[in-house]
């Protein structure tokens, strides 16, 4: 085994990509999904409690959050297949 200059042989670009993509995707999708759950629960509560004004913004929050989650998953699989 040839002596390895440790820092020089690490694939820094790849490692950094894993760090920022993993962090962004992991935390981002969790936040988006939490807003989806919150939006759906709030829509149900607004309907039960007769607050029609609260239905639309919460439904919009749930829809946008759901779309973000779905887009993230599709993008991840697309990148795996084509990258």
């Amino acid at each position, binding site marked *: *085994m*040839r*002596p*390895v200059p*440790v820092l020089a*042989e*690490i*694939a820094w670009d*790849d*490692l950094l*990509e*894993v*760090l920022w*993509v*993993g*962090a962004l*995707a*992991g*935390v981002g*999708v*969790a*936040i988006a*999904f*939490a*807003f*989806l*759950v*919150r939006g*759906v*629960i*709030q829509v*149900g*509560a607004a309907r039960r409690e007769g607050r029609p004004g609260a239905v639309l913004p919460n439904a919009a929050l749930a829809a946008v959050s759901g779309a973000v*989650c779905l887009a993230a*998953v599709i993008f*991840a*699989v697309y*990148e*795996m*297949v084509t*990258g």
Partner: protein
Amino acid sequence: MASDLLLVIVVVAALAFDFTNGFHDTANVVATSISTRALPPRLAIAIAAVLNFVGAFLSLKVAATIAGGIVDSGSITLQVVFAGLVGAISWNMLTWWLGLPSSSSHALIGGVVGAMLVAHGTGAINGEGLLGKVLIPGLVAPVLAFGVAGVAILCIYRIVGRQRPGPTTRGFRLGQIASGSLLALAHGTNDAQKTMGIITLALVAHGSLNGASPDVPFWVVIASASAIALGTYSGGWRIIRTMGSKIIKMDAAQGFAAQGSGAAVILAATHVGFPLSTTHVISGGVVGAGAAKRLSAVKWGVAGNMAVAWVLTIPAAGLTGGVAYGISHLAGGGTRGPIAVCVVIALLVAFLLRSRRVRTPPPIAEGAAS
């Protein structure tokens, strides 16, 4: 003719390893979904098996790293590949028996490196590849998953903390079906490729493929995907218990955060061709999701046992791979070597089973007890 027979033995051993990989690592994919009751056990395992199969077709970058980035593929022989597989399978079986979620990937890499060291010395090991593509990413990824799962669960609690618990739990259980599926896909993508890489190495050693730029044949992809999916469907319940409830008792949101962070890190690593340990990553996610809520929620003794198994994996599999190569070499190489190794393993297993029977005291008869 003899080398063809040896190739068949090596390919069968590689697929057996792939089966144990799926069997051993099923826990990574399904344990959190089962423990939070997001999915019934059989359905969770069936979904994981199907998605492991599909995931194996998504990418070949990790296979390329295994086939050419860690050892000198020009010096590899079928005996070395076989001995490496013996090391990996032995370690997988031992840790499965103990219920420890150790890394099949590191066992495989350790086994091949150990056998290669004994066969050709240090010059045949690609130190740069081993360090830069296996060891450093292998250290960084579980820490990343730990941090990501911790931050994710804190954000989740902040966003849904004041909502009614029933619907929130139901929502995250549904989310776990998606995050668990993505994790199964990521696992199939990263782990099945390691076997593809090993079979490709064997084909290079046999002379069936060009060592300079070996392409993974399609039959290798199909066979590896099938073996890991079958192994996953067989399930490893001992490790599922450790992952699902012995480290922390999780709620559905924690399960979602752990699986989501694990899938994100594994998919990102697979994209750049790092052969990560999926076991280490998802374990990091599980511990991170638990520790962020309450440090004392994590059973640190169990986590410590797992950490010891992680540290031992590469040296232990390497040692076993090296010993297996030594036995194979002493037996005269060719097809006789692997057959001699199989005989030694069979004798060892018989000895262990016999010693277990001797040590187990006979049941006390009702009359004799009084």
